């Protein structure tokens, strides 16, 4: 017996992602999905970012990793609350994992939900989690050919961060090439050069987060210190 299906294999995931998006909207929490290869600086950036947003704005975090709770342990002191998801063999997060974790997170208290996806430049781009914004990171140590090699994530990103800019003088990195590769894919997303060491570009990134929060949920912060 033949059954005609004609349905996207990602449909099941996408439906849950839409529910997640509704939930975040309802709580007026801005959800960001951070995508990059391992070691490009996601956890370090989050440590700094969450601290810089405090105390006016609170953040909760979901961290996806194959194994260990190291990133969650690093972020715990900074965030309002952190949940770790060990994905085991899976190289990316699924929307249902976010749905499950979100249930235990105090979204009513959170201005931002940062989701640190599993370190991988390909699969996380395929699975919508229900985030409002996708953040793509590329550390300059990874080489200036990576945009052309892994174009999809840079095409769908809402912002692109070139990280570890403090190392620019010791690394051969053709900035023009990277910028031109990105412009062929995505002229809408801001491209920011940042370093958590020298603090280059950091204020600009924080400003972008706050602007996005205001434009998407219409408020600066849930609980402003009085």
């Amino acid at each position, binding site marked *: 017996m033949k*059954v005609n*299906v004609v349905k*996207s294999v990602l449909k099941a995931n996408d439906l849950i992602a839409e529910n997640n998006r509704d939930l975040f909207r309802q709580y007026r929490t801005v959800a960001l999905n951070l995508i990059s290869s391992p070691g490009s600086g996601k956890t370090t950036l989050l440590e700094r970012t969450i601290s810089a947003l405090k105390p006016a704005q609170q953040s909760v975090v979901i961290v996806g990793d194959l194994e260990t709770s190291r990133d969650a342990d690093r972020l715990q002191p900074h965030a309002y609350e952190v949940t770790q998801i060990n994905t085991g063999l899976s*190289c*990316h997060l699924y929307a249902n994992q976010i749905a499950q974790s979100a249930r235990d997170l105090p979204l009513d208290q959170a201005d931002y939900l940062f989701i640190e996806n599993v370190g991988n430049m390909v*699969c996380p781009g395929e699975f919508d989690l229900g985030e409002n914004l996708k953040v793509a990171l590329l550390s300059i140590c990874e080489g200036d050919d990576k945009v052309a090699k892994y174009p999809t994530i840079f095409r769908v990103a809402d912002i692109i961060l070139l990280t570890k800019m403090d190392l620019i003088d010791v690394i051969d990195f053709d900035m023009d090439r990277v910028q031109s590769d990105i412009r062929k894919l995505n002229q*809408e997303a801001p491209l920011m050069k940042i370093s958590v060491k020298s603090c280059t570009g950091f204020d600009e990134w924080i400003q972008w987060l706050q602007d996005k929060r205001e434009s998407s949920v219409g408020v600066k912060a849930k609980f402003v210190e009085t």
Partner: protein
Amino acid sequence: MHEFSLIEAMLDQVDTVARENHLDRITDIHLQTGELRQVIPEMMQTAFQSARQGTVAEQATLALTEETGLAECQFCETRFKPMIHDFQCPSCQGTKVRIIQGNDIILLSINGTQKGEGAR
């Protein structure tokens, strides 16, 4: 490497459809892959060979058809065939596009036998 993720998602869906239709053995699966998803057919087959074990599709074959990509510029409405690493509109050079086709992984059909069928 994303082929493994996609095959797993496909097998979940195959399992659901099989159950809905009371199929206990799947013989053929027909999958359409969008060009812009950059899947490598050989990798899909390799992933399928290993992931199908222990599933209702353990004995199944996988047929793949590729759908070509097509995009429409949001500024000037020009339709064009984008390349994986170049989504610039040929008319206005913008990159704000709507993808019309070639971005989905679609389970087209499955073939299988129902319980008791063939045993008679």
